[in-house]
């Protein structure tokens, strides 16, 4: 029997019972929700092993997709090639993709090759994980800035901090299209965006023992629930809801795309009337701490369990977004390792009418490897890989380069800001000091304007622009890509190049479209 999300109620209940039995405490608040399946002890061991060995996949696991028309008998025949002779019911299903775990065969590459050679199998590959994009020199600020600097919009930090929007002429773009419309839905596949104002009780190692701890969560005032739609958690809560961000990355990305604007509060976002579909495909340090505690594993694991994005969850999230009305999908995630399932998911999303913006990678100084899924974007018309530039329109020092880079947008560069982190991208997100891995008990209900840098920050600029274009009537992903390319400001070597692709996005020009001669 396939395990599908619809059957999750039973698993949630079982997970809850296991948690209660294990820790022997009475759940204090909302005990019906519990993190579970993906973080059992065996998988946590495997993730830990992957981290220590520098692997970008989970040892002992492969992702397999059978060819269409293969019945259970044929699928089982293909599985029989694996040493442990797994049964179909042992697979974890995500739509038509399944994860096979064989603890007797830690060599995932070998197992994937074995399965891939079977005639019933479309593809099989290691269960890749993406590291959370590096966030360098983050800094929180609590002041509200100087409102007198502002012209439009009226958010007090727009003029003082958001150089990135001025650099791409957002004020003029908003004259043409003021923040898109609410019928435009943008899927954000990331660490999540918190969608509830409440506390949850989770097991957590607190320094001396594992205890059940109440952790407060709150919705960002600049991303109200009224602008959220069809939230979905693919990695933490088996129930799929609610979505919680315990890292801040997803909230920052979503704020660039659609932070409340003209509300005289904090900063602005690009498509501030559009709606956001929070899709959680990544976990951070604290989710792993909770999972470790739930598995009865004490200890702090700073620098080890620093979070990851599950490639299967990413693919499932991309498909989910496209199938549930998202016209734009942002994927600020990447890493080495080609995952066919991600390529298939992006291709399917584009064919369903969703434009996909993907970060090009932050690995220029780390050997500049080919980054996936960004690399796929170059061959998918309707998906774009986005490089990062700094304040002076130079390539950000970390921004990966390669022939897959298609477009550039502000991603921040602390070396290119004139000091004091002026060169970062500033948006509302979780107050970093509240959930720093070095503290004992985190909280996730405080927000501030946070400075980050990365191609993770660049991609949402393109996603936001795409949302404006959709509301302008350019609804086909291929057309959106074409228009963004055609109107880009060429940077670097003349024409398309490996640093900037076709150049820096020009929202006003893209929204204004083309006349006869200009």
């Amino acid at each position, binding site marked *: 029997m396939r395990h599908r999300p619809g059957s999750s109620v039973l698993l949630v209940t079982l997970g809850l019972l296991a948690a209660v039995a294990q820790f022997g405490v009475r759940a204090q608040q909302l005990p019906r929700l519990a993190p579970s399946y993906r973080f059992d002890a065996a998988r946590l061991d495997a993730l830990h092993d992957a981290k220590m060995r520098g692997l970008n996949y989970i040892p002992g696991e492969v992702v397999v997709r059978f060819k269409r028309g293969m019945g259970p008998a044929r699928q089982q025949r293909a599985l029989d090639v694996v040493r442990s002779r797994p049964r179909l019911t042992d697979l974890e299903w995500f739509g038509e993709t399944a994860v096979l775990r064989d603890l007797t065969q830690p060599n995932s590459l070998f197992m994937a090759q074995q399965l891939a050679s079977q005639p019933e199998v479309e593809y099989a590959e290691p269960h890749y994980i993406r590291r959370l994009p590096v966030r360098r020199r983050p800094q929180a600020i609590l002041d509200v800035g100087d409102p007198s600097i502002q012209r439009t919009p009226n958010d007090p930090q727009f003029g003082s901090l958001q150089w990135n929007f001025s650099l791409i002429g957002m004020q*003029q773009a908003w*004259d*043409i299209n003021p923040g898109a419309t609410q019928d435009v839905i943008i899927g954000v596949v990331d660490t999540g965006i918190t969608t509830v104002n409440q506390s949850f009780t989770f097991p957590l190692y607190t320094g001396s023992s594992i205890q059940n701890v109440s952790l407060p969560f709150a919705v960002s005032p600049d991303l109200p629930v009224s602008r959220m739609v069809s939230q979905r958690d693919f990695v933490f809560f088996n129930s799929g809801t609610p979505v919680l961000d315990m890292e801040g990355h997803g909230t920052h990305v979503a704020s660039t795309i659609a932070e409340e604007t003209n509300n005289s509060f904090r900063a602005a976002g690009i498509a501030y009337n559009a709606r956001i579909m929070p899709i959680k495909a990544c976990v951070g340090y604290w989710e792993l701490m909770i999972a470790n505690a739930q598995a009865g594993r004490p200890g702090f694991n700073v620098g080890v369990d620093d979070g990851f994005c599950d490639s299967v969850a990413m693919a499932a999230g991309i498909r989910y977004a496209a199938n549930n009305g998202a016209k734009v999908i942002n994927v600020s995630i990447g890493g080495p390792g080609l995952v066919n399932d991600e390529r298939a998911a992006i291709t399917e999303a584009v064919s369903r009418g969703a434009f996909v913006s993907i970060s090009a990678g932050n690995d220029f100084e780390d050997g500049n490897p080919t980054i996936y899924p960004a690399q796929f974007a170059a061959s998918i018309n309707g998906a774009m890989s986005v490089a990062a530039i700094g304040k002076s329109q130079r390539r950000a020092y970390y921004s990966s380069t390669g022939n897959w880079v298609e477009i550039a947008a502000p991603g921040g560069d602390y070396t290119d800001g004139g000091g004091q982190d002026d060169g970062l991208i500033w948006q509302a997100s979780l107050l970093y000091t509240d959930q720093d891995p070095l503290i004992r008990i985190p909280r996730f209900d405080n927000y501030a304007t946070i400075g980050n840098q990365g191609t993770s920050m660049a991609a949402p600029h393109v996603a936001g622009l795409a949302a404006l*274009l959709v509301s*302008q*009537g*350019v*609804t*086909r992903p*291929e*057309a959106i*890509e*074409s*228009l963004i390319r*055609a109107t880009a400001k060429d940077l670097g070597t003349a024409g398309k190049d490996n640093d900037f692709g076709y150049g820096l996005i020009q929202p*006003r020009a893209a*929204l*204004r*479209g*083309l*006349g*006869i*001669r*200009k």
Partner: protein
Amino acid sequence: MRRVLIAILSAAVLISTPEIAAAQQKPTQKPPAPATRKPPPKTPTGVRLYGLVDVDFMAATQTFDATLGSSTLIGFGGGADITNVWGGLFLRAALSHVGKSGERVAVAGDEIFPLGIGLKLSMTPIEFGAGWRAPVGKRKRANAYGGGGLLLVRYSETGDFAAADDDTNESFPGSFFVGGVDFLIGKVFNVGFEGQYRIVKNALGDGGVSQIFGEDDLGGFTIRAMFGIRK
């Protein structure tokens, strides 16, 4: 007496006509009489003044279809032909004006996405040309003509939300070839129809939709109706 009179008159005629007399004196070779033609009556230089209506079928069909919804444009104007400058030679100066509104668009492959952002086109071709006219028919109230010349197209394109250098206001040179016929109605009234083939290369194609479609010619084929006077 009568015979004498006839002889005197004959002699007088012969004397007064030396060639005849000489011929009579040398009757051996008589050259053929040279053919003589009446010189044509000299036609005075005239002028033809007219108002005109143009139907322009633009060469850049995809560009104009995409932005204006049609590549067939209507123009109005006027002109003057100076006729019979030298024989059937005539000289022309004329201008017409085309104005049409449309929308700026996004283009992806064969698909056009109107963006709801207004676009206004204004085009004024100015013609300087020459040609040859010849009367047609027995009553000579119709003239057929053909010719060509130079064009100067004043081109203006404006759009909503335009920044300083977004709009276009330029002139482009070109050429045209023309053929037509006109009819005299009454003593001075004149009706004419002609076709023009216009070439205005490199006026388009540097940007905008025309670049995407690879269309660089602002010319095309024009059908023109003219109403005026001929003197």
